[in-house]
C-alpha cells in the first residue's frame, strides 16, 4: 500500500479549506486546553480566582508526596491489571470456543458483542443494582452463601464491583479481536500441526497462541488504556471513588480534585501526569504493536 499517492490535485487554497474545520477544533479544544493544563500545573491558584502564583514544580512535588495520590496510583495499577487480565482471558476462551463451533458462530458473536453498545455509566448502574447491599440480587445470593457483601464499607468489594462492571463491558471488544485473529490463522497450519502429531491442547500453546501474540499484546495495551480512562463513568456511577478513596482511580481523582475539591493547580498537575502516561502507552502501542510481524 502506498504511503504517498502518485496523483495530486493542484489547487492551492482548497486543501486548506478542507482541513480547516478539523484544525480549528483541534487547536481550540485540544492544544489550547493541553497547553493551559501545562501552564496551570505550575501555578498555585486561589479557588476563587483571587491570586495566582508561579510555583514551578511544587504542585507535582506535593502530589508525589501526597499519600492519597500515590494510593490512587496503586489503585489504578491494581484495577487496570485486573481488568486487562480478566477481560483478556475470558474473551480468549470464548473466542477459541466460538472459532470451534461451525454452526451458530454468528449468533454467539451477536449475543456476546452487544455490551459494547452499553455506556460505561449504565454498566456501573446495572452492576450497582445487582450488588446493592440491601436490594441487590447477587448480594443477597452471596449472603445466602455466607459472604457479607457491602461495597459501601468494604474497599476490596468495591474494587471487585468496578472490576466486574469494567470487564463485562470490555469482553465484547476483546472477543471480536481475538476471533478475527484466530480466523486469520491459515487452516493449513493447524492441519500441518495435526499431521505432525500435535493434540489440540498442544497445538493451541505451540502454534495458535504464539501466532495470536500480536493481537494479545495489542489488546493488553488497549485494555490498560481503557481501564485508565474510559472507566470514569463506571466509578462515578457505582462507587464514586469510595469507600473513602479505595476506588479512586487516577482519572477520577483528577476530576474530584478539580471540580469537587477545587484544587485547580493539583488537578491540572494530575492531568499533565495522566497525559504523560497516555503518551507513553501510545508510543509503546505504536512502536511494538504496529511493528506486527508480517508472516
Amino acid at each position: 500500500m502506498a504511503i504517498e499517492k502518485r496523483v495530486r490535485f493542484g489547487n492551492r487554497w482548497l486543501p486548506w479549506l478542507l482541513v480547516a474545520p478539523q484544525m480549528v477544533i483541534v487547536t481550540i479544544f485540544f492544544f489550547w486546553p493541553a497547553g493551559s493544563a501545562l501552564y496551570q500545573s505550575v501555578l498555585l491558584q486561589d479557588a476563587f480566582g483571587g491570586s495566582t502564583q508561579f510555583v514551578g514544580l511544587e504542585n507535582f512535588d506535593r502530589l508525589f508526596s501526597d499519600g492519597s495520590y500515590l494510593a490512587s496510583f496503586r489503585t489504578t495499577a491494581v484495577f487496570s491489571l485486573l481488568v486487562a487480565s480478566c477481560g483478556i482471558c475470558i474473551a480468549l476462551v470464548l473466542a477459541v470456543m466460538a472459532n470451534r463451533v461451525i454452526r451458530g458462530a454468528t449468533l454467539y458473536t451477536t449475543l456476546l458483542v452487544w455490551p459494547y453498545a452499553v455506556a460505561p455509566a449504565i454498566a456501573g448502574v446495572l452492576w450497582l443494582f445487582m450488588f446493592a447491599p440491601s436490594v441487590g440480587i447477587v448480594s443477597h445470593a452471596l449472603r445466602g452463601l455466607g459472604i457479607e457483601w457491602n461495597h459501601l464499607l468494604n474497599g476490596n468489594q468495591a474494587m471487585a464491583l468496578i472490576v466486574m462492571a469494567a470487564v463485562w463491558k470490555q469482553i465484547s471488544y476483546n472477543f471480536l479481536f481475538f476471533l478475527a485473529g484466530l480466523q486469520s490463522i491459515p487452516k493449513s497450519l493447524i492441519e500441518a500441526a495435526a499431521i505432525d502429531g500435535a493434540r489440540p491442547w498442544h497445538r493451541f500453546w505451540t502454534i495458535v497462541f504464539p501466532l495470536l501474540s500480536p493481537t494479545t499484546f495489542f489488546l493488553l495495551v488497549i485494555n490498560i488504556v481503557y481501564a485508565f480512562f474510559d472507566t470514569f463513568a463506571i466509578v462515578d456511577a457505582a462507587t464514586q471513588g469510595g469507600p473513602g478513596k479505595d476506588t479512586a482511580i487516577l482519572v477520577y481523582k483528577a476530576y474530584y480534585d478539580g471540580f469537587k475539591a477545587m484544587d485547580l493547580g493539583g488537578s491540572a498537575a494530575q492531568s499533565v501526569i495522566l497525559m504523560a502516561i497516555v503518551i507513553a502507552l501510545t508510543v509503546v502501542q505504536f512502536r511494538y504493536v504496529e511493528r506486527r510481524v508480517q508472516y
Partner: protein
Amino acid sequence: MVERRPGITLIAHLVLVLGVLLVSFPLYVTLVASTQTSEQIVQQAPMSLWPGSNLIETYRAALFGGQTASGSRISPVAPMLKVSFICAMVIALGKISISMLSAFAFVYFRFPGRTLCFWMVFITLMLPVEVRIGPTYQVVAGLGLLNTYAGLTVPLIASATATFLFRQFFLTVPDELVEASRIDGAGPIRFFIDVLLPLSATSIAALFVIQFIYGWNQYLWPLLFTTDESKYPIVMGIRRMLAGGDAGNEWNVVMATAILAMLPPALVVLLMQKWFVKGLVDAEK
C-alpha cells in the same frame, strides 16, 4: 476442523452458552426490575427473578415523569432521550464529515504545513478527553458554550481515528480512478462527491456505528458542561437518579431508564453488526 470428536464441540457450545448467560444476566435483571414496582424491589428484597406486571406504569413514569409513592418527583426521561439522540447524531455525522475532508486533503493534495497539520492530528490520538478535563472546561466556559448543544458536541468532533481510517482507505483507492476522472474533466470536489464518497460507503457505515455509540455514551463531558436539566443526555441523567441511596432510589424507574438508554445503541449495533465489526477491526490496523 481437524478433530471431529463431537465431545469437543459440545463442550465448546456449553462454554459459549455459559458465556452468553453470564453476559446477558445483568440485562435480564434490569429488564425484570423495570417491570416491577418500587415497593416490590425494595421491600421484597431480593427481587423476584420473574417479570412483574408493572411494565407500562414504570416506563410511562420514566419517560414522562411523575410522582413516586413517597411524593418525590421523577424527572421525565423523554427529553433526555432527545438530547442524547441529537448529540449522538451530530457527533457521528460531524466527525465523519470533518475527518473525510481532512483525510481527502492529506492524501490527495500537497500543501505547505501538511506534515505539521498531520502530526497535530496524530497527537490528539494520545490524549483522550478525560485527561484534559479541567482546562477544557475553562475554554468551553470562556467561549460561552456551557449548557448548549454546541458545547456538548463540538469538542468531541475532532477525531484522529476517523481521519486515519479514511486516510488508510483513500490510500487503497487506485490512482487510475483519479486520472480517469481528470481526463473526464472532473475537478477535486467532483471527484470527491462522485467517486470517493460512494466507494467509502462501507467505511462510513462502520464508522457511523462506532461514533454513534461513542456520542450516545458520553458521560464525563455532559457531566461537566451542563447544569441545565433540559440538556442532560440520558446516560448522564441516570446518574442523577441514584441520589436516594439503596432503599431510597426508585429502582424500577432507574432500571427502566437504563433499558431506554441502552436500546438505541444496542439496536444500531445489532442492525449494523457487520459494519460495526469491520469498523472496529479496521480502525486498529
